[in-house]
C-alpha cells in the first residue's frame, strides 16, 4: 500500500508535534522510524492508523484518508508500547476480537507465538506483567498480517531473548509475505539491520529519509590532522566535529574512497550513531 504524507501538521495547544511533514512510503518494506523523545513519531503513527486527526495536511493510503474509514483501518495494525488492550479482557478474548477485525488474521501464527511467549489464554490483561503484555502486542501485530503493520516501541519489559525471537518471527513473516512494517524504537542497534529504509524525525520535522544501505555507504567518520580534515570538509555537510589529542574527527556525508585519497582515517557510522549526531546537532542549533 502506498502511504503519502502531505504537509502534515499536528498542533497540541501551542506546540507543533508535527510541523509540515511530507514524504512517501511507496512499497512494502521494513521502515525504521527514528527520533528522540517528543520528535513526533507517535503522533505520526496515531494519524496514520486513523486514531487521531491532523491539524493540517493529510495522510493518504492508496489515495484515501484513514480516519473513520473501516475498509482502511482493517488494513492497518498499530501496536504501541502499552495499553493496547482493555484491562478486563482475557488473552483469548483479545485474540478473538482481533481475529474478527483483521481479514488476513493468521491463527496458526498467533497460536505459535502464544506458546513461544508462554502466555496463558485465560489470564486477564490486568494481571499480565509488562513483558507479557508486550508479548501479546507483538503476537497480535504479527498475526494481524495487516498490509500496514506499525510497531511503536512494542517491547517494554520484554527481555533480550524474547526480543530476538520477535525480530526472527517478524523477518520470517516478512519473507513469506512482504508488507509495510513501520518500526519505531530506541533500541536502534538491535534492529537497524532489519530496516530497508530509515526515517528520522526531529522536533516535528523530517530530517532524513534514506535507504539504510546508502546511509551505511555514505556516512563516514573521518579523522586526522586538523588542516587535512578541514580541507576534506570544505563544502560538505558536517554532522558533528570533535577534537581530541591533536586529532579532529568529523561525522560527515561522503565516501570512504574520497576520504582515503585525502589521507584521512575513515570509518563507517552505524545508524544508531547517525541518529544521535543528527538530532543532537539540530537541538543545539
Amino acid at each position, binding site marked *: 500500500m502506498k502511504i503519502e504524507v502531505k504537509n502534515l501538521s499536528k498542533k497540541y495547544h501551542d506546540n507543533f508535534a508535527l510541523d509540515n511533514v511530507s514524504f512517501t512510503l511507496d512499497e512494502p*518494506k*521494513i521502515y525504521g522510524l527514528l527520533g528522540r523523545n517528543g520528535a513526533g513519531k507517535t503522533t505520526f503513527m496515531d494519524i496514520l492508523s486513523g486514531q487521531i486527526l491532523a491539524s493540517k495536511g493529510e495522510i493518504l493510503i492508496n489515495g484515501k484518508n484513514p480516519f473513520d474509514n473501516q475498509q482502511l483501518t482493517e488494513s492497518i495494525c498499530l501496536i504501541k508500547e502499552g495499553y493496547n488492550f482493555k484491562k478486563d479482557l482475557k488473552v483469548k478474548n483479545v485474540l478473538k476480537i482481533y481475529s474478527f477485525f483483521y481479514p488476513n488474521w493468521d491463527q496458526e501464527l498467533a497460536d505459535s507465538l502464544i506458546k513461544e511467549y508462554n502466555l496463558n489464554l485465560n489470564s486477564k490483561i490486568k494481571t499480565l506483567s509488562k513483558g507479557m503484555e508486550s508479548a501479546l502486542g507483538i503476537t497480535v501485530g504479527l498475526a494481524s498480517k495487516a498490509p500496514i503493520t506499525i510497531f511503536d516501541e512494542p517491547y517494554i519489559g520484554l527481555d533480550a531473548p524474547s526480543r530476538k525471537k520477535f*525480530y*526472527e518471527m517478524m*523477518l*520470517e513473516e*516478512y*519473507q513469506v509475505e512482504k508488507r509495510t512494517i513501520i518500526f519505531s524504537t530506541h533500541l536502534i*542497534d538491535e534492529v*537497524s*539491520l*532489519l*530496516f*530497508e529504509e530509515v526515517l528520522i524525525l526531529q522536533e516535528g520535522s523530517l530530517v532524513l529519509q534514506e535507504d*539504510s*544501505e546508502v546511509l*551505511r*555507504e555514505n556516512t563516514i567518520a573521518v579523522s586526522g590532522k586538523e588542516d587535512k580534515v578541514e580541507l576534506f570538509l570544505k563544502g560538505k555537510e558536517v554532522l558533528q566535529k570533535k577534537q581530541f589529542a591533536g586529532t579532529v574527527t568529523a561525522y560527515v556525508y561522503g565516501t570512504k574512497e574520497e576520504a*582515503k585519497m585525502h*589521507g584521512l582515517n575513515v*570509518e*563507517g*557510522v*552505524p*545508524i544508531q550513531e547517525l541518529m544521535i549526531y543528527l538530532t543532537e546537532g539540530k537541538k543545539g542549533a
Partner: protein
Amino acid sequence: MKNSLDENKPIFLQIKEQIEDSIIDGSIKPGERVPSTNEFAAYYKINPATAAKGINELVAEEIVFKRRGVGMFVTEDAKDILIEKRKEIFYENYMFPLKNEAKKLRIKESELIEMVKREDDTNEN
C-alpha cells in the same frame, strides 16, 4: 562465513565479499549452491532486500548464476574472475596503506623491500 556483520559497512557488500571469499578459498566450489537470500537474511537477521542486492551483483559479474526454482550456483570461471578482480584492488587495499604507514614510520624503501622478501614461518606455501 563470518559469524556477524560489521554495521559500519554496507551489508550487501559484506554478503558479497563473504561469498567471494568462500569461492576463492574453495569452501564453495564451481557448480555448488550458495546460500539463498532468505537463508542469509535469517542467519544474519538482515533485511532480505539487502542480502538480495549482494547476491544480484554477483549474478551480474557472472560469479554465480540463477537456476529458476532451485537456487544460486557458482559458475565455472568464478574463481578466476575473482582472483583477477582481487589482484586489481590489491594495491589499493594493501600496498597503499602499507606504504602510508611505512612513510609515517620513516621506513626506507630498501627496508620495505627487505621486509617483503623476508621469509616468515607463518606464511609457508
